[in-house]
């Protein structure tokens, strides 16, 4: 076990911004995606683990601070010199003499940026700069806080592709905060769902998906025609423009699919859609007024 959190409370003045009651454990090799809307406590969680905000409770880890690396939401560096020198100072080595560093620079296509000052880099280049430094730390546990926020779609996709490629076959653990579910789809195997400073749930993606969405979901566009055709099926919570149905059994799934094909309706089938998982976990927590994680998972075991 790399890290465990229990009875954690973080307060900013009179406001409790994060409260984690049931234990959260991160084991070696875990790749945890942290999701939740703004103000859910995602960044505060990272900051409390790193000791950057005062907290009450227990955060247990055998890791030393230098064994944890972090890509913060906002990373700033001095602008009085080209980033090459900043990189060399932070890593304590010359780029020309370090093969691994050269490979990383090449991997993230950063060679042409080395002579530039930090403020002259584009958003994507800035993110890649910090990622190179973070990866060179070769830390046991890495935190990525909204690593692609503020980037355009293409740059975001490219960066995530690079991260996926980099972590392929590696045993490193990380905790990644993101608002983009497709990123976590490619990178995370566990999810921590936060809402208004509380944990809705934490666990393996497949388990959580089954808990909130069933074996699989079928998603179609939200039109009057589709609503009429599918009226007999119970709906899951979904974004306003979609209709989602849970398929608890293969038989039910076949029935729905047949119906959709007969009516020539386009559909999407998924057994791991993070967005659907999040929406339904949040809807259930809102409905019950209690967080699943703190209220006991057995409540929703069915």
């Amino acid at each position, binding site marked *: 076990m790399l890290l465990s959190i229990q009875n954690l409370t973080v307060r900013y003045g009179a406001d409790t911004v994060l409260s984690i009651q049931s234990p959260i454990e991160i084991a070696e090799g875990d790749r945890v995606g942290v999701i939740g809307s703004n103000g859910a406590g995602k960044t505060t969680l990272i900051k409390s683990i790193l*000791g950057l905000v005062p907290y009450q409770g227990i*955060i247990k880890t055998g890791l030393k*601070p*230098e064994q944890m690396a972090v890509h913060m939401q906002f990373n*700033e560096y001095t602008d*009085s010199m080209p980033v090459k020198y900043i990189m*060399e*100072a*932070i890593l*304590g080595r010359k780029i020309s003499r370090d093969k691994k560093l050269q490979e990383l620079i090449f991997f993230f296509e950063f060679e042409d940026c080395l002579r530039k000052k930090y403020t002259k880099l584009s958003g994507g280049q800035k993110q890649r700069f910090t990622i190179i430094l973070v990866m060179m730390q070769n830390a046991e546990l890495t935190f990525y806080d909204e690593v692609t926020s503020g980037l355009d779609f293409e740059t975001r996709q490219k960066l995530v592709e690079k991260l996926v490629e980099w972590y392929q076959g590696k045993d490193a653990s990380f905790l990644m905060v993101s608002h983009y579910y497709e990123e976590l789809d490619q990178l995370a195997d566990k999810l921590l769902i936060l809402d208004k400073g509380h944990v809705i749930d934490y666990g393996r993606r497949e388990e959580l998906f089954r808990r909130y969405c069933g074996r699989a979901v079928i998603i179609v566009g939200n039109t009057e025609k589709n609503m009429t055709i599918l009226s007999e099926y119970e709906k899951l919570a979904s974004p306003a423009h979609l209709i989602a149905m849970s398929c608890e059994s293969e038989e039910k799934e076949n029935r729905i699919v047949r119906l959709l094909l007969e009516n020539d309706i386009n559909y999407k089938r998924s057994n791991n859609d993070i967005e659907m998982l999040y929406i339904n976990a949040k809807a259930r927590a809102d409905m019950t007024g209690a967080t699943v994680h703190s209220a006991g998972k057995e409540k929703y075991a069915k």
Partner: protein
Amino acid sequence: MQNKSKNKRLISGQMLLFEFRNTIGNPYVHIFGVGMPVLMMIIITRAVAGEMPEGPMLSATMTSIFLGIGALIPMATIFMGYGVAHAQELEKGIPQRLELFGIQISVTLCNRILSEIIFMSIAFVIYFVAGYGFAEVESPSVSGALLYMVCILVLSIILFCLSHAIASLLKKFGATYCVTMILYFAQMILGGMMGISYDNMPSPMQVAAKLLPVTYINRDFYTVWKGEHYNFVPMVQSYLLMGAVTGILLFVTVRKERRELH
């Protein structure tokens, strides 16, 4: 973890070079730390030369002015320059970012103070070249030169710690700029560098002036420079007082900035 062990060295070539680039990238230090003392020294010594007859009295006065204005260099390059730059970095979260990369604050501080002292030494070389070129500066005794170096060096270290504490406590560029600027001019005025000499000050001002090391550097250092007998006790006391105030502020800063780690 290879890079971590390298960063654990208190002083390293790469970090020193990094901090030096950081120091020279700050425009304040060039304007206030190099340009202003040289300009002030030239203008004031020229003004004095116009009003005094040639002779040993003139060169003694010029040397005294030259030594006093020299104290502006650590005050501008280190006290104001570093304080303002550090506040700017704090606003952007740069020191914390470096710490999260495993670079301890002690490493950053040691390399920074060394780089500031290197820059200050270069500023002094320029100042001395200008001084010997434009003013009649008398040659020092060996002990006088050494003591001047020691006094400036100790003052620089105290000023570095003081500006670090001020910036760390205020955390904002504007507030730090304001406070360091006020203290900078207060030291210049009370030190007798702005037209009113110590002897012409009203007595409450003299009390405050006596507490500052710059007063002694500006008023008395000609005696030390020439190797003549000098009572160092008041000067040492002023250094101790400034050091103690700085120490308390630094202690508060360190306690406030400490990370709560598991």
